[in-house]
């Protein structure tokens, strides 16, 4: 118990003192996750919206697939991306394995189905409300998709924050494709796993506390946006 309390104290000191290693790991984690989220948003938001408003053969199957892939095991994603990026894989010549780019790809693969599936649901619900008006005004489908995305922006930010939360807390995939190399691909989650196994609980706890703070900040942001949405009566 005393060791536990001591570790907590050390963790607090590490955070307060602005430890360089800690800051580097946090900065890399944020950069990788934010980039992965950006890529997933660029793909997932329009694709999810099109899936919600369009009618084409195979749409139902794609929707089921996107929903199923929301629960994609991170280690399976890591393994798949590893096979693609390894020297023997089709993208081997790019030499991306064990780089932050590989971790961005893995995280993007992991959360894009989440963004697609949740966006589809949000946009489908709003489209059910707007469809007759759009049809009456003879709104072209691409304009309708743009309008739905814009009008659902508060709900979609919540979707993106859900994707961010999933990516930032993920360990299996980035461990496999990043390799947890110090000063290169060491993320918060992989560092926590490593430092715990090495017995350096202070650093692991410090990173865990930062991760918790980030999760709290994300949830706080969601609550704030919901409040803003309600007060602006856009809901």
């Amino acid at each position: 118990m005393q060791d536990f309390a001591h570790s907590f104290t050390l963790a607090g000191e590490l955070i307060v003192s602005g430890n360089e290693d800690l800051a580097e790991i946090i900065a890399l984690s944020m950069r990788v996750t934010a980039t992965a989220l950006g890529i997933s948003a660029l793909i997932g938001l329009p694709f999810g919206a099109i899936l919600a408003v369009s009618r084409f053969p195979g749409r139902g199957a794609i929707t089921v697939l996107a929903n199923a892939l929301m629960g994609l095991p991170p280690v399976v994603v890591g393994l798949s991306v590893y096979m693609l990026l390894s020297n023997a894989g089709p993208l081997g010549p790019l030499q991306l394995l064990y780089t932050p780019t590989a971790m961005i790809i893995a995280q993007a693969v992991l959360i894009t189905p989440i963004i697609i599936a949740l966006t589809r649901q949000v946009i489908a619900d709003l489209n059910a409300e707007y469809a007759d008006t759009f049809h009456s005004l003879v709104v072209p489908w691409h304009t309708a998709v743009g309008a739905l995305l814009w009008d659902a922006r508060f709900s979609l930010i919540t979707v993106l924050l859900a994707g961010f939360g999933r990516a930032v807390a993920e360990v299996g995939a980035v461990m496999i494709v990043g390799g947890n190399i110090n000063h290169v691909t060491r993320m918060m989650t992989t560092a926590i796993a490593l430092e715990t196994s090495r017995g350096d609980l202070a650093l692991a706890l410090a990173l865990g506390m930062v991760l918790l703070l980030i999760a709290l900040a994300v949830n706080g942001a969601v609550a704030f946006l919901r409040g803003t949405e309600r007060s602006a009566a856009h809901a």
Partner: protein
Amino acid sequence: MHEVVSITAHSEIRLQSAPSPMPLQVRNLTFATDNTEILKGIDLDLATDHLTVLMGPNGAGKSVLLRLLHGLLEPTSGDVRWSGQPLTKAIRKEQALVFQKPVLLRRSVSANLNFALGLRRIPDRAIRLKEALADLGLESLARRPARVLSGGEQQRLALARALILKPKVLMLDEPTANLDPASTLLIEQAISKVRRSGVKVIMITHAPHQARRLAEEVVFIHAGRITEHKPAKAFFDRPESEAARAYLAGEILI
């Protein structure tokens, strides 16, 4: 008083430039869903120079007919022709439909109107926006989120959005249902003004007094069939069908 007169005169000058004839022909129109025949072989000819009110009890098929005329529903069988042409996107662009429950975008009043303007190539968008806000008394609400407006204000915005594209045909599905008298008056004034400018108006209402105020002709529908179609005065003075007489007497029709 002078100001009101000048606004009214100005509005009428604006609106007179919009319309052109678009007569309607409906032949043997049926609509069925889940083994229930809602409309049963409707034949209807509407000229361009009347404000037509569709009347009838709940479930008669009025709203379904209006949606079929605008292409929001596909008929089970039969034919809808405007100016002798089947319903195409080009024809629907010349029409506007105001729903009983207004559906507004999650944006400001102005943004809702601008969205409609952005759908067509309209050069004088700023002027149109200003006119539309003025015509429906929405100037002071222009920057308010549409969803915080009262029911009457929302319906006026829905009507403004329909009129801002200067349709040749305006369809209204119980536009003043559940509205307060002041909002009802504003909407009726706007409808009358549009009608005087030459726009064809087809309107559903359950309120006999409103129909008497606005209608030039009445189409009475009961149980999926048109039982009367005649000038408003003749309909209200001498309803021929038993159903219409009972309806106007305030009896409950099933």
